[in-house]
């Protein structure tokens, strides 16, 4: 199949999936959950409850409610997010920067570590270094983040005082403008090294905690595909040319091994997204994940719906991009096959 067709087909399916997701999300909030739970106080009279239900149009039949909501989503009006006391859309925009920035840096950590460990292990296949790197990277995926993170905080925050938590130092934060909402970018735009370093300092711990978790996914793929590539003839051919091992590995084997590794980046991104929920709670990162956790605890359905829908769309988009990237990179791959 041609790349164009393939992408076209994917793009055609995409809306279907999104609609499906939105239906699931909506059903969850209406059938199981109480959409106005957050507004309810435990001594409210039924009359007061009815009044609130009226305000949020919960007396209409479900399909009507769904269409109303879906229509709102399309027009950018997803209702009121009580946990952040602002319109959902506004809240989403406020927070998405923080989460994306964190996820991006975590991804950088994961990919660097993953590719590094994978190459290191794959090149020393089935020898001690290989086993050690394997155990190390898998440890990351097996670590209960909330437990690990607290240990890190005790060491680096309470005992060493190297980091603080949050997203930036409020004083330094105030020194520059934040047009993009991505603090590192903002700092660069403002040309303020102190703000940039500050952003990195606050980012370091959460990004490492989160990235460590996703390392294994990439490392294992990198390793196994590197092992495969090292068995290919062209590697011997490269050696036969007289290239030193360094080049054989770096320029030939590793470069080809990276291509299939791209396919798991999408998977890893999903891992990072869900990781943010916990990481953001503990490092009080003002992102979407904490927003969601807060909404779950306090029963703010409008927020939960928006978050789940948004996340899945993001996830879908990333996966599509990854597939296209892969298709482009790997000239051997036959799409759809």
């Amino acid at each position, binding site marked *: 199949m041609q790349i164009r067709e393939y992408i076209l087909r994917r793009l055609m399916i995409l809306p279907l999936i999104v609609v499906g997701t939105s239906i699931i999300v909506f059903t969850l909030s209406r059938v199981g959950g109480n959409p106005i739970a957050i507004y309810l*106080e435990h001594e409210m009279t039924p009359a007061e409850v009815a009044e609130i239900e009226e305000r949020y149009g919960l007396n209409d039949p479900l399909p009507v409610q769904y269409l109303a909501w879906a229509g709102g989503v399309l027009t950018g009006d997803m209702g009121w997010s009580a946990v952040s006391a602002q319109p959902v859309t506004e809240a989403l925009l406020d927070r998405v920067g923080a989460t994306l920035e964190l996820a991006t840096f975590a991804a950088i950590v994961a990919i660097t570590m993953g590719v590094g460990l994978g190459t290191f292990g794959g090149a020393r296949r089935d020898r001690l270094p290989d086993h050690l790197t394997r155990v190390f990277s898998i440890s990351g995926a097996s670590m209960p983040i909330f437990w690990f993170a607290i240990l890190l905080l005790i060491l680096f925050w309470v005992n060493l005082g190297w980091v603080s938590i949050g997203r930036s130092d409020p004083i330094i934060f105030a020194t520059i403008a934040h047009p993009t909402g991505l603090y590192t970018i903002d700092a660069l735009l403002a040309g303020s090294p102190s703000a940039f370093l500050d952003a990195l300092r606050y980012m370091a711990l959460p990004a490492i905690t989160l990235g460590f978790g996703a390392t294994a996914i990439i490392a294992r793929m990198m390793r196994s595909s590197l092992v495969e590539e090292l068995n290919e003839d062209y590697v011997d051919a490269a050696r036969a040319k007289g290239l030193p091992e360094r080049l054989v590995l770096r320029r030939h084997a590793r470069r080809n091994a990276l291509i299939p590794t791209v396919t798991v980046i999408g998977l890893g991104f999903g891992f990072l997204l869900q990781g943010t929920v916990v990481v953001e709670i503990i490092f009080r990162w003002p992102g979407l994940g904490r927003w969601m956790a807060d909404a779950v605890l306090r029963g703010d359905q409008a927020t939960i719906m928006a978050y789940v829908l948004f996340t899945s769309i993001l996830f879908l988009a990333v996966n599509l991009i990854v597939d296209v990237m892969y298709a482009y990179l790997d000239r051997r791959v036959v799409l759809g096959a």
Partner: protein
Amino acid sequence: MVLVVLAVLAAACTGDTTTETTGADDTTPATTAPGATTTPEDTTPEEPSGEVSNPGLYVHAADDEPLSLDPAQAAAGEAGETVIAQVYERLVEIGPGGPDLIPGLSSEVPTVENGLISEDGLTYTFPIREGVVFHDGSELTADVVKFSWDRALTMALPEGNSSVLSDLVASTEVDGNNFVVTLNERNAAFLNSVVTAAVASIVSQEAVEANGGVEAGAVNDFMTGNMVGTGPYTFSAWNRAENIQLEVFDGYWGEPAALDVRIDQVADTDVRALGLQAGDYDSIETDPTFIDLLEGAEGVTIFSGDFLLEPVHMGMNMNIQADLLPPEDTIPPDFFHDVNVRRGFNLAFDYQAFIDGGLGGLGGVVPHYLPQGMLGYDESLPVFERDLEAAEAAFTEAGYWDEGFTMTVLVEEGGIFEVAGLVLADSMAELNPAFNVQVLAVVEGQFDSAHAEDPFPYAAWVKNADPFADPAALFSAYIHPDGDWGAVHGFRDAYADPDLIASLVDEAAVELDSDRRVEIYQELATLLYEDPVWLIPGNERALMAHRTWIQNFDMNPLWPRPSLKFAYFDK
């Protein structure tokens, strides 16, 4: 004439006696080292230890984000009150130490003998303070005050707390520089429980009218996210999910505050505790269940003040619909109609376990339904103590001893309520292995929506009462057979003599002679000991862990949340 004064004084006394109640705290044996708990008097002279972080700024770590900063929308005990209390002011305020009243935007506290309360106790006159300006520069006048009250009454947002106004207030008028309120019935608790409530805060009329004005039943988005008041602090920023920033208001009419304030949002309990030890936070939203874990931490002081006037209680549902209960429950719908069952629970509960395990050893047992520090409280009042023989007798009498039962109690997950539930389960299992209490710990949202259902679909729940400075409010809400709770949960079917209870509560509510009130409440307390409708695991203290370098740290026992008046603090 002097009666009201007495009433107020009576309340005042409890405030002044902070030291006694905490210092000589033998009624509630604390497992914690005495040194760990300190009274305001101790903290004041203390020298800040070590190098102070964030000089000139007071950082408080809050556990959750306000749902609204609008006095007309914020619910009682909701996170928004913490901030509202600092930025907005009310006509009269509650003093730093306790429930004694001090003048606020009203230059005097109305009393009968200063003539500001009418003889019949129905009309209150508040002389409005001169020369007060709002943070937006507008003038405070009696009209603005009326505007603020009327605003809350007009909006009447169900999630808000406006009902405390609407229940009592018949009319509001402006008379020259005075603001005059007329009540629809006499109420001894009006000043303490209504005028001081966050919902009665005075907001800038200009600001409101410039931003959407007032609309009945509709939320005002501007006011939800902004504040324009007259308080010692101006609202400077609300970075959602990060912090709320307040700055000292230079044009404040009174004693200016010493420190700017930043309220950080820190969802995770452990992280708050760590941040306090790291010195990043000056005080943290403290949960008694782990307060003892902070004892002796470097540079940290644990403030332990009066008892909060909002006892933890286990509610018993006397209006059970069998088909609504969780399937595993085996109890009959009229389970709690039998006084022996209710007494049985009260006798079986392991109070000490809850005080130690739930309240960090810093709590006490309470007579029904008069928390320590409340008008009418008396040590001699009968208090339930664990007595397994008596409990066994009660349950045998009720006829459940042999076959036993399974019952689900709904609690909010985490914190003292879950602990209370677990203690209950253990207590009953210890009394009789056939007594199986399932603790269903749900998140806040689910807890509240369960309670919004009528009838309530569980047999029992654990929560705490809303805080009130005066017993009248407590009793009409939590004891009266036709009150907010009594009506929903069928107290009438439970009480031996519901009408007697009802008449006593009603009488006390309108009685202005405090001696008589004390009499009535103590009679009620005794009645309720024989015929309890609640189980009261214990009474929380005003607790807060803060950096030792904070000076004049004090905490008001009335509310858990706005109880910090940052304006008094310094470092």
